[in-house]
């Protein structure tokens, strides 16, 4: 790919300054020394070597891999091609100048088209056909060129239109019909194989093609971003692309993609937490003074208690009871919390879990004897019997059942964790149960995935429950969840 030098219009250091400001705005903690390092680093690596340049900046500015994705997006926006061919000067004109420039830089393309003329004269069918071939052969350069073509044809981008990149992405991908493309690729792979593919080989082929299609999607996305940058300018674009870092993603409003990221983030988090907690338990705790032993040893100092003796530290492990609302919007929150609690369950002497909507069910057995917590959580969502009347949250009734069936198991060693937004659909609150529970249990905590500002608005009665609980916390993202769990032990 030919690279225009952004230095041509903006001095590099200015560009870098803006870049770092944007990184900070996106939530990345960039310190002054790191800033200076980056400035020094770019003097050693030429900007033309884009990969190395990117990694050089990344190495000096991003010190947490979870932030890498955010960095990549900002990098792309700031140091991306900003040549004249990306300007959207009306669909017709842009298409005149553009494809020629691109094709001359991609020698392979002309032949592949078989003299079919410039990209513009291609029908959508021809484009699809070429795309199919490129995917089949894994021809990277061709795929890039076609991704550009596709964006130009299908995205329908107009200068100055205040529409987000996702809209264009959706439009382009819908026209490319990538789902049926995968099936076609598989069929053709079957045909080409000397003997029929076994299931196993088929699976591998499919993964390979899926991987190529993913790459194509990434190309399309990058192309759209490039064009948007050309249209709106760097700062505006970076602002619209700003996304929360994984640990700040709101449980209740996470998109499907963010959910997948969260699921990936939770495993290392639990591992980290488990190591840290185990360490905390082993260190820094001293038992109470062992009076008898101290006096016994004082005899050798003539009765002066010179050497205090302590009891062997045996911190009691708490018993956990988790009661989680798994209705609608709070379900994902409950899922993450259950996941986390079970991942560190060796920090507790016993963990029991209950889920409810308007009925309540114990789900401890799903977690017993399985190493796969994700699977157990999935079973909770599909198999637990939690609907009593209509499947709308009824905290009062759920607590009723809990107290009646399991109330006797709540003891002075039990920590009760209640998860939910306390949106009770105007049913009776039965908050006396929480009060009773608080008397019997060691601690009762309420975790609410809603922003604090929304508490006690509408049908939320979290305030009424919270008065009886030992603590009520806003837990909207992984960061808050992590810090709560650490406090808990």
């Amino acid at each position: 790919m030919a690279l225009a030098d952004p230095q041509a219009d903006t001095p590099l250091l200015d560009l870098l300054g803006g870049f770092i400001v944007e990184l900070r705005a996106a939530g990345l903690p960039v310190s002054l020394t790191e800033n200076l390092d980056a400035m020094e680093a770019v003097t050693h690596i030429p900007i033309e070597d884009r990969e190395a340049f990117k990694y050089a900046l990344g190495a000096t500015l991003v010190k947490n891999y979870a932030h890498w994705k955010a960095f990549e997006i900002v990098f792309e926006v700031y140091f991306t091609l900003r040549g004249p061919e990306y300007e959207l000067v009306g669909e017709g004109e842009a298409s005149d100048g553009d494809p020629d420039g691109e094709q001359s830089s991609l020698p392979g393309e002309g032949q592949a088209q078989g003299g079919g003329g410039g990209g513009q004269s291609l029908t959508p069918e021809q484009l699809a056909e070429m795309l199919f071939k490129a995917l089949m052969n894994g021809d990277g350069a061709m795929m890039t060129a076609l991704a550009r073509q596709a964006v130009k044809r299908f995205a329908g981008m107009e200068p100055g239109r205040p529409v987000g990149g996702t809209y264009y992405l959706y439009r382009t991908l819908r026209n490319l019909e990538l789902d049926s493309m995968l099936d076609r690729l598989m069929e053709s792979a079957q045909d080409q194989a000397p003997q029929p593919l076994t299931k196993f080989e088929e699976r591998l082929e499919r993964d390979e093609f899926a991987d190529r299609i993913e790459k194509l999607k990434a190309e399309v996305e990058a192309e759209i971003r490039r064009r948007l940058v050309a249209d709106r300018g760097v700062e505006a674009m970076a602002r619209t692309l700003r996304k929360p870092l994984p640990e700040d993603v709101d449980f209740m409003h996470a998109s499907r993609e963010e959910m997948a990221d969260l699921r990936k983030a939770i495993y290392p988090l639990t591992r980290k937490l488990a190591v840290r907690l185990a360490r905390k338990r082993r260190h820094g705790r001293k038992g109470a003074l062992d009076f008898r032993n101290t006096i016994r040893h004082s005899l050798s100092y003539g009765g002066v208690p010179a050497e205090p003796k302590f009891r062997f530290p045996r911190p009691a492990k708490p018993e956990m009871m988790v009661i989680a609302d798994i209705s609608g919007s709070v379900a994902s929150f409950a899922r993450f919390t259950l996941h986390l609690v079970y991942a560190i369950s060796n920090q507790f002497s016993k963990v029991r879990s209950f889920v409810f909507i308007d009925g309540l069910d114990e789900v401890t057995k799903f977690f017993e004897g399985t190493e796969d917590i994700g699977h157990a959580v999935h079973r909770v969502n599909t198999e637990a019997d939690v609907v009593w009347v209509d499947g709308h949250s009824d905290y009062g009734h759920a607590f009723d059942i809990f107290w009646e069936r399991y109330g006797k198991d709540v003891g002075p060693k039990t920590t009760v964790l209640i998860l939910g937004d306390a949106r009770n659909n105007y049913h009776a609150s039965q908050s006396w149960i929480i009060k009773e529970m608080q008397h019997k249990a060691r601690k009762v905590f309420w975790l609410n995935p809603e922003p604090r500002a929304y508490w006690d608005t509408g049908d939320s009665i979290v305030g009424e429950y919270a008065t009886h609980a030992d603590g009520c916390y806003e837990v909207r993202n992984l960061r808050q969840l992590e810090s709560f769990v650490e406090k808990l032990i």
Partner: protein
Amino acid sequence: MDNRFEDVAGVRGALAEANYLADDGIAGIVYLADRLGKPILVEGPAGTGKTQLAKSVAEMIGARLIRLQCYEGLDESKALYEWNYKKQLLRIQTEGGGSNWDEIEDDLFSEEFLLTRPLLEAIRAEDPVVLLIDEVDRVEVETEALLLEILSEYQVSIPELGTVKARQIPLVFLTSNATRELSEALKRRCLFLYIDYPDLEREREIVLNKVPGIDENLADQVARIVRSIRQLDLKKSPSVSETIDWARTLVLMGIDKVDAQTATETANILLKYRTDIDKAVKEFSEAPDGLDETES
């Protein structure tokens, strides 16, 4: 200081000669570390060649590798230096009551009685060295502070002796498995390099490179199968070293084409958890139609 490398491509080529296949990111950061005189903090899943990178870099520039393996409870006397008190005692005894105390005291805290530990050794080395501080996330946060002086100033302060400055700035690698968040102070002083599982092409190259007698076809298959397995939601994805072990096994068994049965029978080399093996075996013996969700 003089630079060890010409340019990024040079680093990459030289690493390849030392049998380490670097991608642009890795080569670029090693190059930059040399130019900026900064340590590299390498993070990533287990078994992706973090430690190997340091070893290969040492081999590449013909330097001695000094390794400090971190563990919980590591302290100054194990990492930096220690006074050889037995020898000091001996010195006092041989001297007897004859000479005056000041002389003995000066003498006792001289280099002769200093036991150097890896960090100090790296600083005092005359010959080129590469310092590897392995699994730095295992030490406590407080112990991390020990490293700060050496990582930013390349010097060690010994109260009795004064400050020992590095004669040359060594290349320093710190590796971490990210079991805990490292302190800001430490991160700030380092260049950060994340080594993830390699992509298909690189993994194939690695297998070809590290497994003698493997043909290209099999290497390609191995790399593709491993990639598919990594896409599953596993407790522990197969690492590069496990991939290599697996490829070696296949070669030893005289297999030139992996089919579903061989793959399931030898899955225990790639995967180390019962549940992971079950999951993979189930995935790969099932009809592929039910698998779309893992790919989308």
